[in-house]
Protein backbone atom coordinates (compact mmCIF):
# COMPACT_ATOMS: atom_id res chain seq x y z
CA UNK A 1 0.00 0.00 0.00
CA UNK A 2 2.61 2.50 -1.10
CA UNK A 3 1.91 5.92 -2.50
CA UNK A 4 0.89 6.27 -6.11
CA UNK A 5 3.25 7.93 -8.58
CA UNK A 6 2.60 9.96 -11.71
CA UNK A 7 3.95 7.08 -13.78
CA UNK A 8 1.39 4.78 -12.20
CA UNK A 9 -1.41 7.24 -12.97
CA UNK A 10 -0.25 7.38 -16.58
CA UNK A 11 -0.24 3.59 -16.70
CA UNK A 12 -3.76 3.42 -15.21
CA UNK A 13 -4.97 6.02 -17.67
CA UNK A 14 -3.59 3.95 -20.54
CA UNK A 15 -5.30 0.81 -19.23
CA UNK A 16 -8.55 2.74 -18.82
CA UNK A 17 -8.23 4.42 -22.26
CA UNK A 18 -8.11 7.97 -20.91
CA UNK A 19 -5.88 10.45 -22.75
CA UNK A 20 -5.13 12.57 -19.66
CA UNK A 21 -3.41 15.94 -19.81
CA UNK A 22 -0.22 16.60 -17.80
CA UNK A 23 -2.17 18.68 -15.28
CA UNK A 24 -4.71 15.92 -14.81
CA UNK A 25 -2.01 13.34 -14.19
CA UNK A 26 -0.52 15.47 -11.41
CA UNK A 27 -3.91 16.28 -9.90
CA UNK A 28 -5.15 12.69 -9.93
CA UNK A 29 -1.87 11.35 -8.56
CA UNK A 30 -2.39 13.44 -5.41
CA UNK A 31 -6.08 12.66 -5.11
CA UNK A 32 -5.85 8.93 -5.81
CA UNK A 33 -3.12 8.70 -3.22
CA UNK A 34 -5.34 10.23 -0.53
CA UNK A 35 -8.30 8.05 -1.52
CA UNK A 36 -6.26 4.85 -1.60
CA UNK A 37 -4.76 5.56 1.80
CA UNK A 38 -8.21 5.99 3.25
CA UNK A 39 -9.75 2.88 1.66
CA UNK A 40 -6.77 0.63 2.41
CA UNK A 41 -8.14 0.04 5.92
CA UNK A 42 -10.48 -2.64 4.54
CA UNK A 43 -7.58 -5.06 4.99
CA UNK A 44 -7.65 -4.49 8.79
CA UNK A 45 -10.73 -6.67 9.19
CA UNK A 46 -10.56 -8.88 6.10
CA UNK A 47 -9.48 -12.08 7.76
CA UNK A 48 -8.61 -15.30 5.92
CA UNK A 49 -11.70 -17.04 7.26
CA UNK A 50 -14.19 -14.50 5.90
CA UNK A 51 -15.78 -15.42 2.57
CA UNK A 52 -16.09 -12.60 0.02
CA UNK A 53 -19.50 -11.29 -1.06
CA UNK A 54 -19.77 -10.24 -4.69
CA UNK A 55 -23.49 -9.78 -4.75
CA UNK A 56 -26.14 -8.92 -2.15
CA UNK A 57 -28.49 -11.73 -3.12
CA UNK A 58 -27.59 -15.25 -4.18
CA UNK A 59 -26.95 -15.15 -7.91
CA UNK A 60 -28.21 -18.14 -9.85
CA UNK A 61 -28.32 -18.87 -13.54
CA UNK A 62 -31.56 -17.67 -15.05
CA UNK A 63 -32.90 -19.43 -18.11
CA UNK A 64 -35.71 -18.63 -20.49
CA UNK A 65 -37.31 -20.55 -23.31
CA UNK A 66 -35.32 -20.28 -26.53
CA UNK A 67 -37.87 -18.25 -28.42
CA UNK A 68 -36.91 -15.65 -31.01
CA UNK A 69 -37.69 -12.08 -29.97
CA UNK A 70 -37.30 -8.92 -31.99
CA UNK A 71 -34.00 -7.06 -31.48
CA UNK A 72 -33.48 -3.34 -31.50
CA UNK A 73 -34.79 -1.36 -34.45
CA UNK A 74 -31.87 -0.92 -36.84
CA UNK A 75 -32.77 2.59 -37.92
CA UNK A 76 -32.95 3.71 -34.29
CA UNK A 77 -29.57 2.11 -33.59
CA UNK A 78 -28.07 3.76 -36.65
CA UNK A 79 -29.44 7.14 -35.52
CA UNK A 80 -27.43 6.82 -32.31
CA UNK A 81 -24.19 5.67 -33.94
CA UNK A 82 -21.26 8.10 -34.18
CA UNK A 83 -20.43 6.84 -37.69
CA UNK A 84 -22.24 4.49 -40.04
CA UNK A 85 -21.37 3.10 -43.44
CA UNK A 86 -22.77 0.32 -45.64
CA UNK A 87 -25.35 -0.67 -43.00
CA UNK A 88 -22.65 -1.14 -40.38
CA UNK A 89 -20.91 0.77 -37.61
CA UNK A 90 -17.87 2.48 -39.10
CA UNK A 91 -14.87 2.34 -36.75
CA UNK A 92 -11.34 3.72 -36.91
CA UNK A 93 -8.53 1.39 -38.03
CA UNK A 94 -8.02 -1.44 -35.57
CA UNK A 95 -4.40 -2.34 -36.41
CA UNK A 96 -1.29 -0.38 -35.49
CA UNK A 97 0.80 0.99 -38.31
CA UNK A 98 4.00 -0.85 -37.44
Amino acid at each position, binding site marked *: *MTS*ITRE*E*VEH*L*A*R*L*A*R*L*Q*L*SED*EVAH*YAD*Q*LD*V*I*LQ*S*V*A*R*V*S*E*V*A*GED*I*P*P*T*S*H*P*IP*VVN*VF*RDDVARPG*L*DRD*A*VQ*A*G*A*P*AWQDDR*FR*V*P*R*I*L*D*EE
Partner: protein
Amino acid sequence: MSQMDGDLVRQDAVTLAAAMAAGEVSSEEVTRAHLDRIAAVDERVHAFLHVLTDEALESARAVDRKRASGAPMGPLAGVPLALKDVLTMTGVPTTCGSRVLEGWRPPYDSTVVERLRGSDIVILGKTNMDEFAMGSSTEHSAYGPTRNPWDLERIPGGSGGGSSAALAAFEAPLAIGTDTGGSIRQPAAVTGTVGVKPTYGGVSRYGLVALASSLDQPGPCARTVLDAALLHEVIAGHDPRDTTSIQAPVPDVVAAARQADVRGMRIGLVKELGGDGYQSGVSQRFAESVEILTGLGAEVVEVSCPNFEYALAAYYLILPSEASSNLARFDGMRFGLREGDDGSRSVEEVMALTREAGFGPEVKRRIMLGTYALSSGYYDAYYGSAQKVRTLITRDFAAAFEQVDVLISPTAPTTAFRIGEKVDDPISMYLNDIATIPVNLAGNAAMSLPAGLAPEDGLPVGLQIMAPPMKDDRLYLVGGALEAALADRWGHLLIEEAPQL
Protein backbone atom coordinates in the same frame (compact mmCIF):
# COMPACT_ATOMS: atom_id res chain seq x y z
CA MET B 1 -61.41 22.24 -9.89
CA SER B 2 -62.98 24.18 -7.00
CA GLN B 3 -60.65 24.55 -4.00
CA MET B 4 -57.67 23.16 -5.87
CA ASP B 5 -57.75 25.88 -8.50
CA GLY B 6 -54.36 27.49 -9.06
CA ASP B 7 -52.80 25.29 -6.44
CA LEU B 8 -52.47 22.05 -8.35
CA VAL B 9 -48.70 21.86 -8.09
CA ARG B 10 -48.76 21.94 -4.28
CA GLN B 11 -50.97 18.85 -4.03
CA ASP B 12 -49.59 15.41 -3.38
CA ALA B 13 -50.09 12.58 -5.87
CA VAL B 14 -52.89 10.92 -3.88
CA THR B 15 -54.91 14.15 -3.81
CA LEU B 16 -54.35 14.81 -7.51
CA ALA B 17 -55.30 11.25 -8.43
CA ALA B 18 -58.49 11.46 -6.36
CA ALA B 19 -59.45 14.78 -7.94
CA MET B 20 -58.90 13.32 -11.41
CA ALA B 21 -60.87 10.19 -10.54
CA ALA B 22 -63.73 12.39 -9.30
CA GLY B 23 -63.68 14.38 -12.53
CA GLU B 24 -62.80 17.64 -10.75
CA VAL B 25 -59.71 18.17 -12.84
CA SER B 26 -58.18 16.54 -15.93
CA SER B 27 -54.71 15.09 -16.28
CA GLU B 28 -54.11 17.65 -19.01
CA GLU B 29 -54.81 20.47 -16.55
CA VAL B 30 -52.63 18.89 -13.87
CA THR B 31 -49.82 18.28 -16.36
CA ARG B 32 -50.05 21.79 -17.78
CA ALA B 33 -49.88 23.28 -14.28
CA HIS B 34 -46.64 21.40 -13.62
CA LEU B 35 -45.18 22.32 -17.01
CA ASP B 36 -46.04 25.97 -16.27
CA ARG B 37 -44.34 25.67 -12.90
CA ILE B 38 -41.25 24.20 -14.57
CA ALA B 39 -41.24 27.06 -17.05
CA ALA B 40 -41.49 29.55 -14.19
CA VAL B 41 -38.84 28.20 -11.80
CA ASP B 42 -36.54 25.73 -13.51
CA GLU B 43 -34.23 28.36 -14.92
CA ARG B 44 -33.22 28.95 -11.30
CA VAL B 45 -33.48 25.38 -9.98
CA HIS B 46 -32.21 23.46 -13.03
CA ALA B 47 -33.80 20.19 -11.97
CA PHE B 48 -34.51 19.14 -15.57
CA LEU B 49 -32.14 18.36 -18.41
CA HIS B 50 -34.97 17.74 -20.83
CA VAL B 51 -38.64 18.72 -20.53
CA LEU B 52 -41.16 16.71 -22.56
CA THR B 53 -43.71 19.50 -22.96
CA ASP B 54 -45.65 18.24 -25.98
CA GLU B 55 -45.22 14.55 -25.20
CA ALA B 56 -46.42 14.99 -21.61
CA LEU B 57 -49.53 16.90 -22.68
CA GLU B 58 -50.23 14.27 -25.32
CA SER B 59 -49.88 11.46 -22.73
CA ALA B 60 -52.13 13.37 -20.34
CA ARG B 61 -54.83 13.78 -22.98
CA ALA B 62 -54.58 10.05 -23.75
CA VAL B 63 -55.08 9.28 -20.06
CA ASP B 64 -58.09 11.61 -19.95
CA ARG B 65 -59.60 9.87 -22.99
CA LYS B 66 -58.99 6.47 -21.45
CA ARG B 67 -60.69 7.56 -18.26
CA ALA B 68 -63.62 9.02 -20.19
CA SER B 69 -64.06 5.68 -21.94
CA GLY B 70 -64.75 4.08 -18.57
CA ALA B 71 -61.61 1.93 -18.51
CA PRO B 72 -60.33 0.91 -15.06
CA MET B 73 -57.58 3.32 -13.96
CA GLY B 74 -54.63 2.75 -11.62
CA PRO B 75 -54.21 4.73 -8.40
CA LEU B 76 -51.69 7.16 -9.93
CA ALA B 77 -53.27 7.52 -13.38
CA GLY B 78 -52.70 10.94 -14.85
CA VAL B 79 -50.21 12.07 -12.18
CA PRO B 80 -47.03 13.73 -13.54
CA LEU B 81 -43.56 12.41 -12.72
CA ALA B 82 -39.93 13.48 -13.13
CA LEU B 83 -37.58 10.75 -14.37
CA LYS B 84 -33.89 10.59 -13.51
CA ASP B 85 -31.82 10.83 -16.69
CA VAL B 86 -30.17 7.44 -16.09
CA LEU B 87 -33.19 5.40 -17.21
CA THR B 88 -33.90 4.88 -20.87
CA MET B 89 -37.08 6.08 -22.53
CA THR B 90 -37.54 5.41 -26.23
CA GLY B 91 -36.59 8.37 -28.39
CA VAL B 92 -35.99 10.70 -25.44
CA PRO B 93 -32.46 11.98 -24.68
CA THR B 94 -30.72 9.96 -21.97
CA THR B 95 -27.43 11.57 -21.00
CA CYS B 96 -26.70 10.31 -17.46
CA GLY B 97 -25.40 13.83 -16.90
CA SER B 98 -22.49 13.09 -19.23
CA ARG B 99 -21.13 14.67 -22.41
CA VAL B 100 -20.32 11.19 -23.67
CA LEU B 101 -24.05 10.52 -24.18
CA GLU B 102 -25.08 14.00 -25.29
CA GLY B 103 -27.80 13.74 -27.91
CA TRP B 104 -28.17 9.97 -27.62
CA ARG B 105 -31.77 8.79 -27.90
CA PRO B 106 -32.20 5.23 -26.68
CA PRO B 107 -34.11 2.85 -28.95
CA TYR B 108 -35.88 1.14 -26.04
CA ASP B 109 -37.79 1.72 -22.77
CA SER B 110 -36.41 0.71 -19.40
CA THR B 111 -38.72 -1.59 -17.43
CA VAL B 112 -39.36 1.24 -14.95
CA VAL B 113 -40.58 3.47 -17.79
CA GLU B 114 -42.65 0.66 -19.26
CA ARG B 115 -44.38 0.22 -15.90
CA LEU B 116 -44.93 3.95 -15.44
CA ARG B 117 -46.55 4.11 -18.86
CA GLY B 118 -48.59 0.99 -18.03
CA SER B 119 -49.96 2.77 -14.96
CA ASP B 120 -50.82 5.90 -16.98
CA ILE B 121 -48.31 8.07 -15.14
CA VAL B 122 -47.33 11.14 -17.18
CA ILE B 123 -43.56 11.64 -17.58
CA LEU B 124 -42.68 15.35 -17.56
CA GLY B 125 -39.00 15.06 -18.42
CA LYS B 126 -35.54 13.85 -17.47
CA THR B 127 -33.85 15.13 -14.34
CA ASN B 128 -30.29 16.23 -13.72
CA MET B 129 -27.77 14.06 -11.90
CA ASP B 130 -24.11 13.67 -11.12
CA GLU B 131 -22.41 12.19 -14.16
CA PHE B 132 -23.20 8.45 -14.26
CA ALA B 133 -24.58 8.86 -10.73
CA MET B 134 -21.13 9.47 -9.27
CA GLY B 135 -21.56 12.12 -6.62
CA SER B 136 -23.55 13.46 -3.70
CA SER B 137 -24.30 16.98 -4.89
CA THR B 138 -25.31 16.96 -8.60
CA GLU B 139 -22.35 19.31 -9.15
CA HIS B 140 -20.68 16.59 -11.22
CA SER B 141 -23.29 16.91 -13.98
CA ALA B 142 -21.72 17.95 -17.29
CA TYR B 143 -24.73 20.23 -17.75
CA GLY B 144 -24.28 22.34 -14.63
CA PRO B 145 -25.47 21.90 -11.05
CA THR B 146 -29.03 21.66 -9.79
CA ARG B 147 -29.90 24.03 -6.97
CA ASN B 148 -31.66 23.23 -3.73
CA PRO B 149 -35.08 24.90 -3.66
CA TRP B 150 -34.64 25.58 0.09
CA ASP B 151 -31.56 27.71 -0.67
CA LEU B 152 -30.50 28.17 -4.26
CA GLU B 153 -26.84 28.53 -3.26
CA ARG B 154 -26.83 25.00 -1.87
CA ILE B 155 -26.71 21.50 -3.32
CA PRO B 156 -29.88 19.37 -3.67
CA GLY B 157 -27.98 16.18 -2.85
CA GLY B 158 -26.81 13.63 -5.35
CA SER B 159 -26.64 11.86 -7.49
CA GLY B 160 -30.41 12.30 -7.86
CA GLY B 161 -30.46 16.03 -7.11
CA GLY B 162 -32.64 16.81 -10.12
CA SER B 163 -35.37 14.48 -8.92
CA SER B 164 -35.26 15.72 -5.31
CA ALA B 165 -35.20 19.37 -6.39
CA ALA B 166 -38.12 18.82 -8.78
CA LEU B 167 -40.19 17.57 -5.83
CA ALA B 168 -39.15 20.33 -3.42
CA ALA B 169 -39.71 23.03 -6.08
CA PHE B 170 -43.22 21.67 -6.73
CA GLU B 171 -42.32 20.92 -10.34
CA ALA B 172 -43.53 17.31 -9.97
CA PRO B 173 -45.32 15.39 -7.21
CA LEU B 174 -43.48 12.15 -8.02
CA ALA B 175 -40.00 11.28 -9.23
CA ILE B 176 -37.81 8.28 -9.93
CA GLY B 177 -34.32 8.01 -8.54
CA THR B 178 -31.60 5.37 -8.43
CA ASP B 179 -29.61 4.55 -5.33
CA THR B 180 -26.13 3.02 -5.47
CA GLY B 181 -24.73 4.46 -2.24
CA GLY B 182 -27.46 6.88 -1.16
CA SER B 183 -28.40 8.69 -4.37
CA ILE B 184 -32.12 8.56 -3.57
CA ARG B 185 -31.95 8.96 0.22
CA GLN B 186 -29.37 11.73 0.67
CA PRO B 187 -31.07 14.03 -1.90
CA ALA B 188 -34.39 13.35 -0.13
CA ALA B 189 -32.80 14.25 3.22
CA VAL B 190 -31.40 17.60 2.10
CA THR B 191 -34.59 18.68 0.29
CA GLY B 192 -37.20 17.69 2.89
CA THR B 193 -38.67 14.97 0.67
CA VAL B 194 -39.17 11.19 0.87
CA GLY B 195 -36.99 8.68 -0.97
CA VAL B 196 -36.85 4.90 -0.88
CA LYS B 197 -34.17 2.45 -1.93
CA PRO B 198 -36.05 -0.84 -2.31
CA THR B 199 -34.46 -4.20 -1.58
CA TYR B 200 -31.82 -4.99 -4.23
CA GLY B 201 -33.65 -6.90 -6.96
CA GLY B 202 -37.00 -5.43 -5.97
CA VAL B 203 -37.17 -3.04 -8.93
CA SER B 204 -35.81 -4.03 -12.34
CA ARG B 205 -32.52 -2.55 -13.52
CA TYR B 206 -33.31 -3.23 -17.20
CA GLY B 207 -32.71 0.03 -19.03
CA LEU B 208 -30.91 1.59 -16.08
CA VAL B 209 -27.48 2.69 -17.30
CA ALA B 210 -25.26 0.74 -14.90
CA LEU B 211 -22.92 2.39 -12.42
CA ALA B 212 -22.19 -0.53 -10.06
CA SER B 213 -24.39 -3.44 -10.99
CA SER B 214 -24.31 -5.17 -7.59
CA LEU B 215 -25.35 -1.96 -5.80
CA ASP B 216 -27.67 -0.03 -8.17
CA GLN B 217 -31.37 0.04 -7.40
CA PRO B 218 -34.13 2.29 -8.81
CA GLY B 219 -36.73 3.58 -6.38
CA PRO B 220 -39.57 6.00 -5.70
CA CYS B 221 -39.23 9.67 -4.66
CA ALA B 222 -42.17 11.78 -3.46
CA ARG B 223 -43.26 14.41 -0.95
CA THR B 224 -45.22 11.98 1.23
CA VAL B 225 -44.73 8.44 2.45
CA LEU B 226 -48.01 7.23 0.94
CA ASP B 227 -47.17 8.71 -2.48
CA ALA B 228 -43.81 6.93 -2.37
CA ALA B 229 -45.57 3.65 -1.51
CA LEU B 230 -47.98 3.96 -4.44
CA LEU B 231 -45.10 4.64 -6.82
CA HIS B 232 -43.06 1.81 -5.27
CA GLU B 233 -45.92 -0.59 -6.01
CA VAL B 234 -46.06 0.55 -9.65
CA ILE B 235 -42.37 0.06 -10.43
CA ALA B 236 -41.55 -3.01 -8.30
CA GLY B 237 -41.88 -6.69 -9.13
CA HIS B 238 -40.18 -9.46 -11.04
CA ASP B 239 -38.77 -8.74 -14.50
CA PRO B 240 -37.36 -11.58 -16.62
CA ARG B 241 -35.08 -9.08 -18.37
CA ASP B 242 -33.08 -8.48 -15.18
CA THR B 243 -31.35 -11.65 -13.99
CA THR B 244 -31.06 -10.24 -10.45
CA SER B 245 -34.76 -9.41 -10.24
CA ILE B 246 -36.35 -11.15 -7.26
CA GLN B 247 -39.07 -13.66 -8.10
CA ALA B 248 -41.40 -12.99 -5.17
CA PRO B 249 -44.47 -10.87 -4.48
CA VAL B 250 -43.83 -7.17 -3.84
CA PRO B 251 -44.15 -6.40 -0.11
CA ASP B 252 -47.47 -4.64 0.56
CA VAL B 253 -46.00 -1.19 0.91
CA VAL B 254 -49.24 0.70 0.27
CA ALA B 255 -51.13 -1.09 3.05
CA ALA B 256 -48.18 -0.46 5.37
CA ALA B 257 -48.12 3.26 4.54
CA ARG B 258 -51.84 3.46 5.29
CA GLN B 259 -51.51 1.43 8.49
CA ALA B 260 -48.64 3.69 9.68
CA ASP B 261 -48.34 2.08 13.07
CA VAL B 262 -45.26 1.32 15.16
CA ARG B 263 -46.95 -0.03 18.28
CA GLY B 264 -45.03 -3.03 19.55
CA MET B 265 -42.26 -2.65 17.00
CA ARG B 266 -38.64 -2.90 18.03
CA ILE B 267 -36.50 -0.14 16.54
CA GLY B 268 -32.70 -0.18 16.70
CA LEU B 269 -30.51 2.91 16.88
CA VAL B 270 -27.25 2.15 15.09
CA LYS B 271 -24.56 3.21 17.53
CA GLU B 272 -21.96 3.65 14.79
CA LEU B 273 -24.15 6.03 12.73
CA GLY B 274 -24.29 9.05 14.97
CA GLY B 275 -22.35 11.17 17.44
CA ASP B 276 -19.21 13.01 16.37
CA GLY B 277 -19.20 14.01 12.76
CA TYR B 278 -22.93 14.67 12.68
CA GLN B 279 -24.06 18.30 12.59
CA SER B 280 -25.73 19.34 15.87
CA GLY B 281 -29.12 20.14 14.31
CA VAL B 282 -29.09 16.76 12.56
CA SER B 283 -28.49 14.96 15.85
CA GLN B 284 -31.10 17.10 17.62
CA ARG B 285 -33.90 16.45 15.11
CA PHE B 286 -32.99 12.78 14.99
CA ALA B 287 -33.21 12.51 18.80
CA GLU B 288 -36.63 14.20 18.73
CA SER B 289 -37.88 11.67 16.19
CA VAL B 290 -36.63 8.84 18.38
CA GLU B 291 -38.66 10.28 21.25
CA ILE B 292 -41.72 10.51 19.04
CA LEU B 293 -41.37 6.89 17.93
CA THR B 294 -41.09 5.83 21.56
CA GLY B 295 -44.20 7.86 22.35
CA LEU B 296 -46.04 6.11 19.52
CA GLY B 297 -45.45 2.76 21.19
CA ALA B 298 -42.22 1.49 19.64
CA GLU B 299 -39.48 0.04 21.77
CA VAL B 300 -36.22 1.77 20.87
CA VAL B 301 -32.93 0.11 21.72
CA GLU B 302 -29.32 0.77 20.78
CA VAL B 303 -27.73 -1.73 18.40
CA SER B 304 -24.10 -2.04 17.43
CA CYS B 305 -22.95 -2.74 13.87
CA PRO B 306 -19.19 -2.67 14.45
CA ASN B 307 -18.14 -3.21 10.83
CA PHE B 308 -20.12 -0.24 9.49
CA GLU B 309 -17.05 1.90 10.07
CA TYR B 310 -15.38 0.01 7.21
CA ALA B 311 -18.35 0.38 4.85
CA LEU B 312 -17.23 3.61 3.23
CA ALA B 313 -13.78 2.22 2.46
CA ALA B 314 -15.23 -1.01 1.06
CA TYR B 315 -17.74 0.92 -1.02
CA TYR B 316 -15.08 3.15 -2.59
CA LEU B 317 -13.28 0.04 -3.77
CA ILE B 318 -16.26 -2.02 -4.92
CA LEU B 319 -18.06 0.81 -6.67
CA PRO B 320 -15.09 2.09 -8.72
CA SER B 321 -14.16 -1.49 -9.61
CA GLU B 322 -17.60 -2.24 -11.00
CA ALA B 323 -17.90 1.22 -12.55
CA SER B 324 -14.56 1.03 -14.35
CA SER B 325 -15.78 -2.19 -15.94
CA ASN B 326 -19.32 -0.98 -16.73
CA LEU B 327 -18.11 2.30 -18.22
CA ALA B 328 -15.82 0.48 -20.65
CA ARG B 329 -18.83 0.44 -22.98
CA PHE B 330 -18.44 4.16 -23.60
CA ASP B 331 -15.79 3.73 -26.25
CA GLY B 332 -17.19 5.94 -29.00
CA MET B 333 -17.88 3.04 -31.34
CA ARG B 334 -21.60 2.25 -31.27
CA PHE B 335 -23.32 5.22 -29.61
CA GLY B 336 -22.63 8.59 -28.11
CA LEU B 337 -19.60 10.83 -28.54
CA ARG B 338 -16.65 10.02 -30.80
CA GLU B 339 -13.64 12.31 -30.65
CA GLY B 340 -10.55 12.62 -32.85
CA ASP B 341 -11.55 10.20 -35.61
CA ASP B 342 -9.54 11.93 -38.33
CA GLY B 343 -9.01 8.88 -40.53
CA SER B 344 -5.44 8.33 -39.35
CA ARG B 345 -5.82 7.57 -35.64
CA SER B 346 -6.27 4.02 -34.41
CA VAL B 347 -9.34 2.79 -32.59
CA GLU B 348 -7.45 2.86 -29.29
CA GLU B 349 -6.38 6.45 -29.77
CA VAL B 350 -9.92 7.48 -30.67
CA MET B 351 -11.26 5.67 -27.62
CA ALA B 352 -8.81 7.42 -25.32
CA LEU B 353 -9.57 10.83 -26.83
CA THR B 354 -13.31 10.19 -26.69
CA ARG B 355 -13.23 9.17 -23.04
CA GLU B 356 -10.94 12.04 -22.14
CA ALA B 357 -13.34 14.52 -23.76
CA GLY B 358 -16.56 12.81 -22.74
CA PHE B 359 -15.99 12.07 -19.05
CA GLY B 360 -15.77 14.59 -16.23
CA PRO B 361 -13.25 14.60 -13.37
CA GLU B 362 -15.15 12.43 -10.87
CA VAL B 363 -15.80 9.74 -13.46
CA LYS B 364 -12.13 9.68 -14.44
CA ARG B 365 -11.09 9.49 -10.78
CA ARG B 366 -13.32 6.52 -10.13
CA ILE B 367 -12.43 4.70 -13.35
CA MET B 368 -8.75 4.92 -12.45
CA LEU B 369 -9.40 3.96 -8.84
CA GLY B 370 -11.32 0.89 -10.02
CA THR B 371 -8.67 0.02 -12.59
CA TYR B 372 -6.08 0.19 -9.82
CA ALA B 373 -8.12 -1.88 -7.34
CA LEU B 374 -8.65 -4.61 -9.92
CA SER B 375 -5.09 -4.74 -11.22
CA SER B 376 -2.95 -7.76 -10.52
CA GLY B 377 -0.87 -7.42 -7.39
CA TYR B 378 -3.46 -5.17 -5.74
CA TYR B 379 -6.63 -7.19 -6.31
CA ASP B 380 -6.50 -9.22 -3.08
CA ALA B 381 -5.52 -6.32 -0.85
CA TYR B 382 -8.13 -3.94 -2.21
CA TYR B 383 -11.06 -5.48 -4.07
CA GLY B 384 -10.78 -8.87 -2.34
CA SER B 385 -10.69 -7.30 1.12
CA ALA B 386 -13.59 -5.00 0.28
CA GLN B 387 -15.69 -8.01 -0.66
CA LYS B 388 -14.92 -9.55 2.72
CA VAL B 389 -15.99 -6.36 4.46
CA ARG B 390 -19.20 -6.66 2.51
CA THR B 391 -19.76 -10.04 4.15
CA LEU B 392 -19.09 -8.54 7.58
CA ILE B 393 -21.57 -5.73 7.02
CA THR B 394 -24.24 -8.17 5.86
CA ARG B 395 -23.59 -10.18 9.03
CA ASP B 396 -23.91 -7.03 11.16
CA PHE B 397 -27.30 -6.34 9.61
CA ALA B 398 -28.43 -9.94 10.09
CA ALA B 399 -27.42 -9.89 13.76
CA ALA B 400 -29.15 -6.53 14.28
CA PHE B 401 -32.36 -7.71 12.64
CA GLU B 402 -32.46 -10.64 15.04
CA GLN B 403 -32.93 -8.09 17.81
CA VAL B 404 -35.04 -5.41 16.10
CA ASP B 405 -37.57 -5.00 13.27
CA VAL B 406 -35.96 -1.93 11.71
CA LEU B 407 -32.87 0.21 12.24
CA ILE B 408 -32.77 4.01 12.18
CA SER B 409 -30.10 6.69 11.81
CA PRO B 410 -29.73 10.19 10.43
CA THR B 411 -29.68 9.90 6.61
CA ALA B 412 -26.76 12.27 6.12
CA PRO B 413 -24.27 13.79 8.57
CA THR B 414 -25.05 17.37 7.55
CA THR B 415 -27.73 19.49 5.94
CA ALA B 416 -27.24 20.76 2.37
CA PHE B 417 -23.80 22.31 1.90
CA ARG B 418 -22.91 25.18 -0.40
CA ILE B 419 -22.32 24.60 -4.10
CA GLY B 420 -18.58 24.46 -4.73
CA GLU B 421 -17.67 23.67 -1.12
CA LYS B 422 -16.58 20.04 -1.67
CA VAL B 423 -16.49 19.63 -5.42
CA ASP B 424 -12.75 18.98 -5.69
CA ASP B 425 -12.36 17.30 -2.31
CA PRO B 426 -13.35 13.68 -2.97
CA ILE B 427 -12.91 12.39 0.57
CA SER B 428 -15.13 14.99 2.18
CA MET B 429 -17.68 14.50 -0.61
CA TYR B 430 -17.64 10.73 -0.04
CA LEU B 431 -18.37 11.20 3.67
CA ASN B 432 -21.88 12.43 2.81
CA ASP B 433 -22.86 8.82 2.17
CA ILE B 434 -21.45 7.34 5.35
CA ALA B 435 -24.86 6.37 6.75
CA THR B 436 -26.49 5.28 3.50
CA ILE B 437 -23.78 3.03 2.06
CA PRO B 438 -24.09 0.00 4.39
CA VAL B 439 -27.57 -0.75 3.02
CA ASN B 440 -26.33 -0.86 -0.57
CA LEU B 441 -23.52 -3.23 0.33
CA ALA B 442 -25.92 -5.62 2.07
CA GLY B 443 -28.77 -5.16 -0.42
CA ASN B 444 -31.58 -4.48 2.04
CA ALA B 445 -34.20 -1.71 1.92
CA ALA B 446 -34.13 1.83 3.32
CA MET B 447 -36.09 5.09 3.32
CA SER B 448 -35.28 8.70 4.10
CA LEU B 449 -38.00 11.06 5.29
CA PRO B 450 -37.97 14.59 6.74
CA ALA B 451 -37.25 14.93 10.47
CA GLY B 452 -37.42 18.74 10.68
CA LEU B 453 -35.19 21.74 10.03
CA ALA B 454 -31.79 22.10 11.68
CA PRO B 455 -32.07 25.11 14.03
CA GLU B 456 -28.64 26.47 13.08
CA ASP B 457 -29.31 26.84 9.35
CA GLY B 458 -33.04 26.25 8.82
CA LEU B 459 -32.37 23.44 6.35
CA PRO B 460 -34.04 20.01 6.17
CA VAL B 461 -32.76 17.01 8.09
CA GLY B 462 -33.48 13.44 7.00
CA LEU B 463 -34.10 10.33 9.06
CA GLN B 464 -33.19 6.95 7.61
CA ILE B 465 -35.12 3.75 8.28
CA MET B 466 -33.49 0.43 7.31
CA ALA B 467 -35.37 -2.85 6.96
CA PRO B 468 -34.30 -6.44 6.22
CA PRO B 469 -34.33 -7.66 2.59
CA MET B 470 -37.87 -7.90 1.16
CA LYS B 471 -39.34 -6.29 4.29
CA ASP B 472 -39.72 -2.97 2.49
CA ASP B 473 -43.22 -2.64 3.96
CA ARG B 474 -41.69 -1.98 7.40
CA LEU B 475 -40.14 1.24 6.06
CA TYR B 476 -43.61 2.51 5.30
CA LEU B 477 -45.11 1.38 8.61
CA VAL B 478 -42.51 3.39 10.51
CA GLY B 479 -42.21 6.22 7.97
CA GLY B 480 -45.95 6.70 7.78
CA ALA B 481 -46.28 6.81 11.56
CA LEU B 482 -43.42 9.26 12.05
CA GLU B 483 -44.57 11.49 9.19
CA ALA B 484 -48.09 11.73 10.67
CA ALA B 485 -46.80 12.45 14.18
CA LEU B 486 -44.43 15.16 12.95
CA ALA B 487 -47.14 16.73 10.78
CA ASP B 488 -49.39 16.72 13.81
CA ARG B 489 -46.75 18.54 15.85
CA TRP B 490 -45.97 21.10 13.13
CA GLY B 491 -49.55 21.48 11.87
CA HIS B 492 -48.41 20.59 8.33
CA LEU B 493 -45.81 18.57 6.43
CA LEU B 494 -42.27 19.95 6.47
CA ILE B 495 -42.33 20.50 2.71
CA GLU B 496 -45.01 23.18 3.21
CA GLU B 497 -42.24 25.34 4.65
CA ALA B 498 -40.17 25.19 1.45
CA PRO B 499 -39.67 28.62 -0.15
CA GLN B 500 -42.20 29.64 -2.81
CA LEU B 501 -39.43 30.55 -5.29
